[in-house]
């Protein structure tokens, strides 16, 4: 049974008191075996250790004079990342989790826009830290999660933690800003979603999904995503779960065997790949296949972030695995609705969370309640367009049936939701590629789960430069763009037009 928590500090403190000696986090480390060969072992930290380490990091942040400031965290999911996050927010500072896959220049722009004064990074992102020191004028402190960082003047996080003495310090209030999370906007510029302690803590604890403490969950999604941070880390902590860190997307199958989880939070893309694995062995009895792929103890997949074909729910059911489809967005911290074991309807995205209410306005889903964000950081116009009298306009079209289950029917906003739950702004890519001389007009859209660009080339330029193979030249432009873009923003389909796009009265290209 989970009680409602209204600050993240309360959430962690009560879990540490209730589950102190139980494992909170498990992760893989490489150590030299007896034969000198590297071998992988699992290490773990208890709830008491997690609380103690994060309290010390909170004290270290205070000592640096950074209490209440904006602190960016960048890196893959790790124990250090989680300690840094809890330490920052529980000391009343604002965490800014950043997408480690973005190019260094883009990250520096976000660091600047979010008024970040301290950056915590893992060594794989040392290049970002070096560039940020040079380019981000407001940045005062650089903290490395790993020892021996090559970044000059970086302080070592675990040395700071060892030297710090936990103090009572600042106790965050429910209305305090806890986190700014960047999300793709429809205008092409990513927006910093401001979430308070109440937004995040109540979203994570409002719904009792019936899981016992000690439930083993494996965290596979990127931790800077609201879905992972809220549901794996915050909800996981609140129920006393054992959170196992998947170290690479390459090793999901291997790590399932290693950690033997009971449940995993996934995006539909992962469900689809695992479904192929199950179907490959369709002649073998289902319990044997399930035991081989997931282990006997595995029972639940929570799916969110994008549309999931309901056929997968039936397929996994044959193997004794329940898929619970949910729905949300960063702006609502993030879960808006979810199916549960006791309240389930195929094809729906479940019932609204108990701390929120929903209504339909001109077919669009609007949400109100304690999960709804405070607005976009320093973007009053975008905030006013999205929030109205406390109601969040989701941009999704849908309906509510008589029993209160929500169903989605389409999107109002022009945003691509990829099958792995990433939101991609077509305008952002169009603006970038539109700068190319060879491109006169471009539309970027989703095409069966991958991003497609439809281009009308600048024929005068083609003539002037005597370009013979326009398609090959455009493909070169796309290849160049793809080299610097993160995987989920890459264009994998190119369509060339021989006429201009149809325009509306304001001379904008008609998208649909």
């Amino acid at each position, binding site marked *: 049974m989970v009680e409602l928590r209204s600050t993240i500090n309360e959430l962690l403190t009560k879990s540490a008191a209730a589950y102190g000696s139980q494992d909170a986090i498990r992760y893989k480390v490489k150590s030299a075996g007896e034969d000198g060969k590297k071998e992988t072992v699992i290490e773990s930290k208890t709830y008491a250790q997690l609380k103690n380490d994060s309290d010390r990091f909170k004290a270290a942040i205070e000592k640096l004079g950074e209490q209440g400031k904006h602190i960016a965290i960048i890196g893959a999911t790790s124990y250090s990342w989680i300690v840094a996050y809890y330490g920052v927010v529980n000391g009343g500072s604002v965490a800014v989790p950043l997408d480690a896959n973005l190019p260094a220049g883009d990250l520096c722009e976000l660091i600047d826009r979010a008024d970040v004064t301290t950056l915590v990074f893992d060594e794989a992102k040392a290049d970002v830290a070096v560039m940020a020191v040079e380019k981000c004028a407001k940045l005062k402190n650089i903290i490395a999660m790993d020892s021996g960082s090559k970044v000059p003047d970086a302080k070592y996080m675990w040395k700071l933690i060892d030297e710090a003495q936990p103090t009572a310090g600042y106790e965050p209030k429910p209305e305090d800003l806890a986190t700014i999370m960047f999300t793709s906007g429809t205008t092409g510029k990513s927006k910093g979603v401001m979430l308070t302690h109440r937004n995040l803590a109540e979203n994570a604890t409002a719904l009792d999904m019936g899981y016992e403490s000690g439930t083993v969950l494996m965290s596979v999604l990127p931790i800077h995503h609201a879905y992972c941070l809220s549901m794996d880390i915050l909800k996981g902590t609140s129920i006393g779960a054992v959170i196992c860190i998947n170290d690479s*997307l390459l090793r999901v199958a291997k790590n399932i065997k290693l950690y033997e989880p009971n449940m995993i939070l996934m995006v539909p893309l992962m469900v689809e790949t695992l479904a*192929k694995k199950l179907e490959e062995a369709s002649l073998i009895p289902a319990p044997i296949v399930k035991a081989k792929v997931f282990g006997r103890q595995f029972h639940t997949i929570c799916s969110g972030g994008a549309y999931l074909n309901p056929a997968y729910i039936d397929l996994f059911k044959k193997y004794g695995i329940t898929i619970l489809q949910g729905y949300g967005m960063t702006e609502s911290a993030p879960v808006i609705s979810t199916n549960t074991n006791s309240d389930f309807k195929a094809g729906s995205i479940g019932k609204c969370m108990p701390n929120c209410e929903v209504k339909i306005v001109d077919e669009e889903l609007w949400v109100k309640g304690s999960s709804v964000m405070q607005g976009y950081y320093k973007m009053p116009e975008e905030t006013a367009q999205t929030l109205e009298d406390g109601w969040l306009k989701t941009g999704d079209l849908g309906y509510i049936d008589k029993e209160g289950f929500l169903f989605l029917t389409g999107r109002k906003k022009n945003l691509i939701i990829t099958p792995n739950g990433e939101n991609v702004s077509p305008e952002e890519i169009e603006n970038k590629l539109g700068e190319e001389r060879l491109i006169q007009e471009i539309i970027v859209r989703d095409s069966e789960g991958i991003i497609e660009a439809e281009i009308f080339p600048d024929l005068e330029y083609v003539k002037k430069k005597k370009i013979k193979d326009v398609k090959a030249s455009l493909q070169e432009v796309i290849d160049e763009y793809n080299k610097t873009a993160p995987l*989920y923003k890459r264009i994998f389909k190119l369509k060339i037009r021989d006429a201009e796009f149809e325009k509306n009265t304001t001379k904008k290209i008609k998208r649909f």
Partner: protein
Amino acid sequence: MYEKLVDIICNYVEVKKEDIKPESRFMEDLGFTSFDFMSMLGEIEDELDVEIDQEKAADIRTVQEAADYLEELM
């Protein structure tokens, strides 16, 4: 390595062996999703006892590029 890789690809996506060319692109031509591709590389890690860097893997586009990268690791 190339031949071995082609065999593994055939286990992952519905494509005929003879249709796989060195210049075939995993996502555009062979119908891989990004997670299919990562999962396949995970299986190759085990089979060849090598360690693949996820960031480098994300830059691989063609079958030949994958074969070259795996050769390097061996």
